[in-house]
């Protein structure tokens, strides 16, 4: 495995019982890259993400995170690998029983030996990074949707992981808030060199964030396209890919596919 690939997926097959979602999926993510996994609903994006972060085990194949196979790792090793990345879940997944500040302090208290004053300082530092300064004593229920996402991001970054995973960062956000979050993701990537892996189907978000993306498809059960989103939009020969990136209805894609076959 080349040293610049921080994530390497090899021949991954994912299945729930008898139902196979993904078959023989392979791709690599370079260190410091902004990588987006795209595709329509039900194509297995979220399943793929759950395999990448070790919530589900592959039916076959390997998922290498920083040289270690998260798909085969057991408890202690799994936990050590999982500490290398942060995950922003779709709805933030902040703990409702804690305040915002306590949510971010939790991993610091559990995994470092920092004194309380420094933890408090780092919590405020993280909050200032996601522009939520002054909200540390707020309860989670008092935060708006966009604030919850940013708070979730601050918690995901608490231990300064080298990789950040995002599950549908724009879902449920208004266009402005969503664009601000994208901007924040870019800034974090540029300033800290963090590897960014995003699962999304929001085109504006994809075009802003992605340096490279892979597109999954439900019937193909795997990757049908790989490359920069602009290239895929303008130059892909696959009608499904063009339809997705040009935001056309499925019927148009099917018509195009028929025309493609006829020509």
């Amino acid at each position, binding site marked *: 495995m080349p040293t610049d690939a921080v994530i390497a997926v090899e021949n991954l097959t994912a299945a729930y019982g008898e139902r196979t979602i993904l078959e023989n999926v392979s791709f690599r993510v370079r260190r410091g890259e902004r990588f987006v996994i795209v595709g329509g609903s039900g194509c297995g994006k979220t399943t793929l993400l759950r395999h990448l972060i070790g919530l589900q085990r592959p039916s076959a194949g390997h998922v290498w995170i920083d040289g270690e196979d998260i798909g085969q790792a057991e408890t202690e090793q799994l936990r050590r690998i999982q500490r290398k990345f942060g995950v922003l879940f779709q709805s933030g997944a902040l703990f*409702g*029983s804690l305040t915002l500040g306590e949510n971010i302090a939790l991993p*610091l208290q559990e995994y*470092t*030996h*920092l*004194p309380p*004053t*420094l933890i408090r*300082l*780092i919590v*405020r*530092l*993280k909050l*200032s*990074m996601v*522009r939520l*300064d*002054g909200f*540390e*004593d707020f309860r*989670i*229920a008092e935060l708006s949707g966009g604030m919850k996402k940013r708070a979730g991001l601050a918690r995901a*970054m608490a*231990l*300064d992981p080298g990789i950040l995973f995002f599950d549908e960062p724009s879902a449920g956000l208004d266009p402005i808030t969503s664009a601000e979050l994208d901007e924040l993701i870019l*800034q*974090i990537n*540029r*300033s*800290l*060199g963090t590897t960014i892996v995003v699962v999304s189907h929001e085109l504006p978000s994809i075009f802003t964030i992605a340096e490279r993306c892979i597109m999954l498809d439900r019937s193909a059960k795997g990757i049908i396209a790989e490359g920069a989103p602009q290239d895929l939009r303008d130059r892909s020969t696959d009608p499904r890919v063009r339809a997705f990136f040009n935001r056309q209805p499925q019927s148009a894609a099917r018509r195009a596919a028929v025309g493609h076959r006829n020509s």
Partner: protein
Amino acid sequence: MTASGESGVTVERTATALRLRITERMDLVTAPALLAAARKALGSHVGRVELDLAAVPYFDSGGGAVVLQLRHEIHSRGGRLEIVASNPAIDGFLALIDEQAVFAPAPVEPPQHFVVKVGDAALQVLRDARELVIFTGELVLGLVDAFRHPRRIRWRETWLYMERTGVDGVPIVVLISFLMGLITAFQAAVQLTQFGADIFVANLVGLSITRELGPLMTAIIAAGRSGAAFAAEIGTMKVSEEVDALTTMGFDRTRFLVTPKVLALVFMLPCLTIIADLVGILGGLVVAVGGMDLPAQVYFRQLRTAVSAWDVLSGLIKTVAFAILIAGVGCLRGFQASTGAESVGRITTSAIVAAIFLIILADAVFTVIFHYW
């Protein structure tokens, strides 16, 4: 003049300032030691401090915290800290932080006046009472409507809840009431044999099971099983906006969510109680036959003279009231869920506690009523 410090921190005094040079990783692990070393190196220095971070191999928020904390401390002494050399990674990191915001005092809400707090609490009690009255009214109207137009009842749900609250609850009711009969008989046996009045074990077990223990234990089991389930189910529906969806679609939340649950429990709790009565009496029989050498026929003959139909019936009448209380309080608490998993947990606990309290209270009222009947 150069003074060497420890753990990768060196300090150098120049003509105009103190120059602090850090050459090791500045991360979450090294931060406390670095901060201590830097503080020691600075001593009580007042004035300009230059920070040289050019040789730092790794920098994360631990390092950021050290820099900010040092700068804060030096500033508060009247000095100044400047980063004179760094590298792109550190610049990028520090560019993300709004330093003033980090040290800005958290907005403090002014403490509320005692009178305001008392007033708020009183208003909350009034709001709760209002909610209770509205809910009770809706429940009564819903039940009256159900009796006048039985076809409007959502029977599919009602059957489902009858199965869950009734049939599924039989094993635990059987187990507990059998043990209750056994325990009662044992306790009675010790006293009764002293007076040679063994035969009266049938009276004691029969009466206490049918009049009190059967209905009460069954109701408490139902509160834990069904009342809690109702509260958690409606609470989760409320949190996930399903209740709002029902309301906006023009449906009556009572008819859809409450009436089937209340009716199911009203039908099933008496049934469970009859089973509990029978099994409890059998528990007494086991002790009478096995421990006191009373023939089974004698036990049953004595039981027939001691326990009247009214004893059993009065127990069953109570369970109808218990059922309404358990299901009603479960649903009411469910509707009081606000947001999140935590509140569902809280209202479920509250539903069980309130139901058990109301059961005991109602039982006391019934005892007095039946006494003077």
